[in-house]
């Protein structure tokens, strides 16, 4: 039972290691199976490792050990007093223990047998919705439903009204049991199938083109983007701390020891200098990029959470600084506000760059990495390539992320090819995966 649950948990996307399985057994051994809530608490403590997993765990647990497995179907009003009237040890029932069980109304035992039968036919291997009936039938067979059917038929054939009433009763109970079996299979199916579907969906989202992502996937997407942000934050944290340790810088130590007669009194350590990535982000939110702008801003938001030294600008016809909005507001407000201020205008890279040149050029020094998110479509205005060239000369790196495919660069009003010489890296970026790749590069390779 527990093994099966762990399998289901794994399939619903919780990483359960072998060690954790052993822990889970030890924990349940310790506290016993008596109290459902306690079992759930204990298993959750052992297995679920993050908020996300806790949520999945709760869901999975409810599906798997749902309350339904403890109660019989709706009571159909058939009186149990038949048992009093008819002696239970009827010879018709001898060969069907199931029938006896139903007459005794021993529900706990019934549920136990149901689960035993389910384990016997390996119900956890159910994968497809269409298999439900088949698996339910096999459970019933394993419980001895055929013998029960035979017993019912014999009772009916007896002609005795009392026995026929008993047959009616058994018939009803049989239906309830069949219902329970189906229920069980369905729950298992849900427990095992759900996670896999989710994961596939996530993968699909990572690969899906940002424009095509459905609105209802936005939330999910947001979680993914933030996850990338967090990942970067922790990775970045690591590179910074590496600088703190160091090897002894022998040459300097010796030189410093000269005033002390060559006694290495003061040691000097080698330090790898790590420069914090200073990022200037230019994000196109014009009409042509609008479907993407949302995600680009979302990404900008995650980045400003992950990095401390980041300045963000949004532009369409003109350019404004949005660092503060991104930093102080919640994500929805921030995006809404930015879009309200300048979103959906037609893009004019020339004017936007001119504004940047005039007002914000001093944001860029030789340590800065400039990231431009945009399609480079200028609506036939002057692209002001010269501004970008100056940025290129000042900055450490200029990265241009273009949502359009390479083929489209330079077609119509796209001035991408003219901007291209003044970028260190120019990439197609219309998938989440691309964003991740680029940012990883931003962090490490310098």
């Amino acid at each position, binding site marked *: 039972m527990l093994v099966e649950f762990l399998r289901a948990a794994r399939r619903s996307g919780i990483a359960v290691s072998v060690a954790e399985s052993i822990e889970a057994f030890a924990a349940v051994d310790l506290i016993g199976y008596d109290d459902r809530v*306690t079992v759930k*608490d204990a298993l959750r*403590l052992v297995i679920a490792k993050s908020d996300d997993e806790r949520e999945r765990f709760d869901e999975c647990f409810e599906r798997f050990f749902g309350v339904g497995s403890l109660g019989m179907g709706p009571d159909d009003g058939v009186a149990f007093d038949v048992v009093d009237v008819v002696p239970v040890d009827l010879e018709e029932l001898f060969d069907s223990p199931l029938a006896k069980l139903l007459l005794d109304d021993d529900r706990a035992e019934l549920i136990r047998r149901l689960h035993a039968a389910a384990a016997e036919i390996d119900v956890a291997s159910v994968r497809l919705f269409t298999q439900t009936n088949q698996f339910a039938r096999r459970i019933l067979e394993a419980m001895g439903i055929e013998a029960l059917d035979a017993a019912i038929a014999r009772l009916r054939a007896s002609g005795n009204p009392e026995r026929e009433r008993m047959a009616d009763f058994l018939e009803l109970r049989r239906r309830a049991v069949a219902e329970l079996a189906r229920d069980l299979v369905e729950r298992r199916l849900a427990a095992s199938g759900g996670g896999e579907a989710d994961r596939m969906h996530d993968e699909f989202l990572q690969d899906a083109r940002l424009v095509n992502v459905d609105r209802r996937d936005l939330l999910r997407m947001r979680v993914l983007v933030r996850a990338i942000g*967090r990942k970067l934050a922790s990775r970045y944290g690591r590179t910074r701390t590496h600088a*703190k340790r160091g090897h002894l810088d022998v040459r300097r130590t010796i030189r410093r020891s000269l005033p002390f007669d060559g006694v290495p009194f003061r040691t000097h350590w080698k330090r790898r200098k790590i420069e914090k990535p200073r990022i200037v982000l230019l994000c196109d939110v014009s009409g042509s990029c609008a479907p993407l702008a949302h995600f680009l801003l979302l990404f900008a938001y995650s980045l400003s959470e992950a990095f401390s030294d980041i300045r963000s600008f949004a532009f369409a016809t003109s350019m404004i600084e949005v660092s503060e909005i991104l930093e102080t507001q919640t994500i929805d407000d921030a995006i809404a506000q930015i879009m309200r201020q300048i979103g959906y205008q037609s893009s004019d890279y020339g004017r936007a760059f001119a504004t940047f040149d005039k007002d914000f050029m001093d944001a860029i020094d030789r340590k800065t990495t400039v990231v431009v998110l945009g399609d480079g479509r200028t609506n036939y205005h002057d692209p002001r390539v010269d501004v970008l060239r100056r940025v290129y000369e000042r900055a450490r790196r200029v990265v241009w992320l273009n949502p359009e495919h390479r083929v489209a660069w330079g077609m119509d009003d796209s001035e991408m090819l003219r901007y291209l010489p003044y970028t260190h890296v120019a990439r197609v970026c219309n998938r989440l995966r691309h964003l991740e790749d680029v940012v990883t590069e931003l962090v490490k390779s310098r």
Partner: protein
Amino acid sequence: MTDAVRPDIGSIEAVEAGLVAANYICNRQTATAIYLAQHLRKPVLVEGPAGVGKTELARATAQYLGLPLIRMQCYEGLDESKALYEWKYGKQLLYTQILKDTYGASLRGVETIGEALEKIGEFDDVFFSEQFLEARPLLAALRQEHGAVLLVDEIDKSDQEFEAFLLEILSDYQVTIPEIGTISTTVPPLVVLTSNDSRDLGDALKRRCLHLHIGYPDAKLEERIIDVRVPGVEDRLRAQLVAFVQKMRTFELKKLPSVSETIDWARALVLLHVTELDGDAIRDTLNILLKYESDIESMKRHVSSILTAVN
């Protein structure tokens, strides 16, 4: 396993009652975690927003089990010499100076350098013995005879290297000091790690721990907490202020008021002889609950509406 089990932790209920006796009100989940940690000998990793009593849990557990609490605050740059052990360099130096004459005496008559080295080697062992060992929190916890509660506070603030190092200790409850040998423990300490989730912890560490998430308590639990921690509050005020804080947590704020803030607030209200919440009293004391100026400003506008909802 039985040798580590004390009679007073026989069941989850007992743990819960024990924590209550140590002035710590918790839900069943938390009690289960402590119970399992004690019996499975696993560290507990406590996560949750600031001020919900993560550190307090370790303190209460120590009090309840009657064990010393050894606390280690993590920060960036924390390393073995600060967490595990260090040699008492000063003492070593001092002793060598004092014992100089003894040295001289025993080295007299030595002919070759090889012999002298051998002699000195004998002293060496003396100076790197436990006598000169400065035990830092981790080692101190391992050396406690009857076990201890080791609180590793804010593990997410430490470096990843340190996290890996901690793993070794958490899995075996033993450390190796090259000069002395392996020091293992008789009774492993109960380890409580807390994290504010400022970065993702390594998977290896996560796998070795029980995960306890403490969130904001519900109204009933919070009232009980206030009842225990701030005895002077009258029932009506308590219900009011808890309801107020609960309501406040539904707003979008930079930093939501936590249990510790509720406790502080209740204390302040008692000090100010407030017997019933009103708009002015709240506005005057709002800075106890909220830590950001912008939060306070935005909340001031809602005070009266929340107040009517609460009443």
